[in-house]
């Protein structure tokens, strides 16, 4: 029997299939990409690895209620990345690790600007330009209303436009 959970396509209760998830296979399939995604938001590889691990723990705890593990993991990684940024910002004395530079002024200038975005803006911009998703796809990944994605992205791009020049 399958019951949808609040209509979210990522979650469905499958009472007869609770132990069928192969976490090892999922980890092999998704971990690399998820670390890159988390890094694109947190700008910190070590934090990204923690985030991905936490997402897999969440998946394990959710068990086979998760109908779409890949989508579930991606949403969890984005949300946990946002949370990790806030947690570190509110810790007061946290300083992000030194960022790599490329000696390409256009890239370095732009990366500096991206780092100044608010956490949710960072997440949406990363999904747009790292994962290369459309606004509708970002909304689906995050479970946000499309209008929220649109306004968040708009504000982020408006800010970046002021800071990134030719």
């Amino acid at each position, binding site marked *: 029997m399958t019951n949808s959970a609040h209509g979210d396509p990522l979650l469905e209760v499958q009472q007869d299939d609770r132990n069928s998830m192969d976490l090892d296979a999922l980890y*092999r399939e998704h971990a690399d990409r998820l670390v890159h995604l988390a890094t694109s938001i947190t700008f910190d590889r070590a934090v990204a690895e923690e985030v991905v691990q936490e997402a897999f*723990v969440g998946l394990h705890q959710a068990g086979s209620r998760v109908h779409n593990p890949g989508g579930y993991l991606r949403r969890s990684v984005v949300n946990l990345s946002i949370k990790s940024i806030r947690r570190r910002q509110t810790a*007061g004395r946290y300083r992000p690790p030194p960022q790599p530079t490329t000696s390409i002024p256009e890239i370095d200038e732009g990366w500096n600007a991206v780092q100044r975005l608010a956490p*949710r803006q960072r997440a949406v911009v990363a999904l747009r330009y790292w994962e290369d998703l459309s606004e509708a796809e970002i909304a689906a990944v995050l479970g946000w209303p499309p209008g929220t994605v649109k306004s968040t992205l708009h504000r982020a791009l408006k800010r970046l436009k002021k800071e990134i020049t030719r």
Partner: protein
Amino acid sequence: MNTTPGATLNDDELDRRLHDIYQTMVPLLVEHTANDATIRPDQTSQLDNGSVVELIPTGPGSQQRARRSRSTGAMRITAAAAAALVVLGVAQLDTGPTDEAPSAQPDPTQSILPTAAPVADETSPPISVNGNAPSSLEALLYPAVAQGASVTDSYLTPAVQDRWGTTVVSPQGNAFGVFLNETLWGELPAGFEQRTYGDNVFAVGDEDGRIAYTTLRPCLMLSVSDDRTSTGPADTQIDTVLNGLVITETDVVVNVPDGWSSLGVGPIEDTYSISFDTSIATDTRRAELRQMLDVNLGTLLNQARIATITPTDFDGTNAWIVTGPESSVEFTYLAWQGDNGAVMLGLQDGNETELVDLARSLSTGYGNEWSDAIGEVTTATIAPNNEPTSGACPTKTLDVNR
């Protein structure tokens, strides 16, 4: 087409630039350690003669991008950059599987506000917008209406871009707000006295019952507020704040000495405010709740009036008891930093015990759950910045150095 260096990018150019930035920097960052922070041109010159090369994007969105009309397909970067990426082996990293199951990372923070989106709440469907409800990702507190709290007013004060705020606290326990409007284009208030602090001239005067120190120049307004009701001419705390301000073309830095603290700094975001009546013992008292998502407490408090601020503990979270100036002394506030934003809870004639009890009674709502509980939310009207008559204002940031 304008190709002048330093000129503003159009939408398509920004789109391509950001794509290039992410496809270059994310793989580099994944490989990066603190000791190899820079790729220098001299590392690359031996590997390429300077001709332009084409590098296939490494990001997961490469294939999707190739089929989009606004996309550039493959990313073109200079030979120096491409070679540099080769030097550091920045192809798509395969972190590889591990034999061990990932371990849980304990959350060191405690807060009445839930985190941005706990996994358990991922089941929330997209909300139907009721008034100005927050998105399903944003958790907001609201009064315990089921236990008799009565909402009298609720409103959203929208964020206006380019406004920043912070609050610094002196060793004597006095709070000073520093507010930056990056692009304000206006004039100093008439009749204010001019004083010089460090390299900056401030207009000093009474502003709604508090002393405001304002410097206004093209593309920048910086204001330091002092809500203390009685400060003599020998007071050195405000001097410390004002003399420590360093203003450049792109940054404003608040330098404060040892012993001072910062409650955080950042852009001012939407403020959600709820006024309500609540029962305390046999009394009915007025209360108010203010929340700002994605900010530090210093940013929220920057938008409040603070006469005194005293550190306290709220269920394991660092918190502050805040009183306003004489004009609003009847309210006492409990302010704290949650995982996803900052909160101020005020109570008429409240003491700390009553405030903590009231804070514990608050409910948390996502999306329409929140707006359904409190009713229609009014959106406040905020005047946007005046646009400069010519030229663009360089973006600035506000930071605290202590």
